[in-house]
């Protein structure tokens, strides 16, 4: 009952509501062996990235969220929430996942 079928090719999973995540914070979704970090910005938008910094695999879900980015807690790389790309002089990219907000409900696309 988690899946809602808008397009059968897309596996939208209900993962919770936006109220489950603190503003400027993140929570994790585990999908098999992979952990996906779901972020909530100050203005209630949500983003999903694999919970792995492209630098040394730091858990991005534990970082400080600011200006559409998250700062990795291990070595302060700054990662774009939308694209997963490292900002500034650093180079690298974390996988990002389509995510949808329907009212307060968050749906994550696990097929990507």
């Amino acid at each position, binding site marked *: 009952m988690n899946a809602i079928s808008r397009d059968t090719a897309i596996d939208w999973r209900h993962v919770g509501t936006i109220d*489950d995540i603190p503003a400027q914070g993140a929570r994790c979704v*585990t999908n098999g062996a992979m952990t996906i970090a779901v972020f909530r910005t100050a203005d209630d938008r949500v*983003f999903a990235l694999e919970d792995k910094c492209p630098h*040394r695999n730091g858990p991005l879900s534990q970082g400080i969220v*600011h200006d559409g980015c998250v700062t990795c807690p291990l070595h302060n790389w700054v990662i774009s929430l939308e694209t997963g790309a490292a900002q500034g002089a650093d180079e690298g990219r974390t996988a990002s996942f389509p995510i949808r907000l329907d009212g307060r409900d968050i749906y994550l696309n696990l097929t990507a």
Partner: protein
Amino acid sequence: MTKQKLVIIGNGMAPGRMLEHLFDLAPDAFDVTIFNAEPRVNYDRIMLSPVLSGEKSFDDIVIHDDAWYAARNIALHKGHKVVAIDRDARTVTSAGGITAAYDKLVVATGSNPFIIPVPGHTLPGVLAYRDLDDVEGMTRAAAAGGRAVVIGGGLLGLEAAAGLKAQGMDVTVLHLMPTLMERQLDPAAGYLLQKELESRGIEVICGANTKAIHGQEKVEQVELEDGTLIDASLVVMAVGIRPNTQLARDAGLEVQRGIVTDSAMRTSDPDIFSVGECVEVDCRVYGLVAPLYQMAKVAATHLAGASDAAFAHAETPTKLKVTGVNLYSVGEFGDGPGFEDIVLRDANRGTYKRIILKNNKVIGTVLYGDVADGTWYNEFLKSGEDVSALRDTLIFGQARQGTGAADPLAAIANLSDDAEICGCNGICKGTIVNAIRDKGLSTLAEVRAHTKASASCGTCTGLVEGVMALTLGDQFAKKAEGMCGCTDLGHGDVRRLIVAKGLKSIPAVMQELEWKTSGGCAKCRPALNYYLLSDWPGEYRDDQQSRFINERVHANIQKDGTYSVVPRMWGGMTSSDELRAIANVVDKFNIPDVKVTGGQRIDLLGVRKEDLPAVWEDLNKAGMVSGHAYAKGLRTVKTCVGSTWCRFGTQDSTGLGIKLEKFLWGSWTPAKVKLAVTGCPRNCAEATCKDIGVICVDSGYQIVYGGAAGLHIQGTTELGTVKTEEEVIEIAGAVTQMYREQGFYLERIYKWAERVGYDTVKAAILDDLDSRRAYYERFVHSQKFSQSDPWSERVSGVDKHEFKPLAVFGDAPATATTVTEPAE
């Protein structure tokens, strides 16, 4: 041609507007019957606030009076709530027993206010803010006087609060979120709004979670989750609305969050339309009037005949209808990837302007104080025009746009030499230019010192800097060394201004000190959070999201994302019971590594985040608390065994170390603080490389400070020698407090002391007894709010969300914690 029968359920603003369009387009197409649950005609609901504040009467806000309905032969059943739609028979029936047949039906049931189901929500004196009955209820309550508590700091709640205040009540607004109107305003504008309301005598409590409403026969008190009790003779709930869909649902129409329609406003039954707040169209529901009027127009067009009119989503600007409060917001206003901010703050005027761009297009704006250009920015938002060419001057508004005047310096270059730059001191451009040239000035501080330009109120600082840039060219380096890219102010300026201006929240600092970003960054937010915590003990609420992860989850993150856990061992002393409890925890949670630290305690390495609360619970049960091994705060007090055991020991160094640790633990400091107490000058506890060290001697205690043994190695400097343990404790508290008040975030004690001067510290802490006492007392006061074990708080449920995944799919990964009971 016989007229068709049109029945409308609901008589709010949307169906009212729809009828106006319909009678314009096809005056003779329908016989119209309206059922209205409210016993009155169609009135302008969005003008209820001026009615509440007394600025308008009900008659002023009537849209269609009885004559209007009569002239159009409309049968209006006032006070008749429809209870059933029979789609097969094509009739509707009201609670009063009236049945009407339809060819076309419009469902416009609107929305219901959401009432939080806290205990006491049904008591007399608890009202929503939705219709004229609510307003009349509030007006009656206001006449009796007392305090009104408004729950909800959104648009409606704040209008209700302002109206009740105008009616003479004392008013408290409770808002669950950290800043007001967070759906429409960013924290900076929310802060300005709060300040304005507070200056009008409205009390605003953000982060307030209502627990219960108390009263015998009617409302008497509101209780918050934190136990605060607020007297109240009236409670207004304005926390949101829910589309009123029950009737449509019962009739078998498709309903999601609202009654689902297509872009022609048709429900799943082609003869039934729906308009207003009850509608869900293209997965959205609406509460502001502009889109509802658009729905009305679309529905009218389709009722009047074949049409391709379609409802399309558009951003609607928000304005607050409180006299004298100017705010405007439209579109996106948060931070997001690819978003670029242009921010202009004027702290003296209390204005804030922010334009949000993406790919050189305006996607949103938030204006406070000066809203004159709101519609102009909204034009850019609607048109999607590329604003690259205007970018440098866009924020100054439409009036400041010259033809091709893209260079903000051009305006200053065009000024004549006798144009006044600084109004306070009457300084002209020529005076500044001459001073710069003749005296070789190159910094703003020098220009202020020599000419007084911008030295008073400071609003002309930008102009003065512009004159300097024009005069000096490339030599003018405007940027001071700011604490981060968000501000040119250094840590010292920020700390001084927080106290001088009485700034008590992060949005307040960012607004008053004119931050260049809307929400700060990972560098400035933890620093500001510390400064506020240090300067306003008991008042400022710690912002968890502005803390580094270690301080947020009270453990140290390791390279693989697991955590290390270090329980406190007071003065480095432990016992068989504590060691057994630690051993049991290690076995129970399969903790891979156990290490003795340099600070005389035990580090459990490799604990999974989800296990932290359970690990803490077991340690708590054995009497152990957090060692704050992760904190910018007191870490350890290292001791030697002292006179208790050692043949050279001169004093009870272990006992004094424990006393110091029990006194100092829990306080937040600019950077970590480590102490040591050693029982004789042989210094086994290594006191001479600590932030604060105590060396016991026969005649008393020598206190040293400012040592470091990390990247930088430095021996301590002597502060002085005292005779009693009590004096040691008072001096340690005082010097810690002086460092807390003056240190820059991440600046260790030795760097702080070098910056302010070791002599200054000694004079304030050792020589001046009054000054020492005052620092000590401020420290003791601040400790009242910091000495609670963060582990036991979390064991009992604080920040639960930190330690659980949001959702789990598929096979969970092989878990490191196969829980096994320890062998006893």
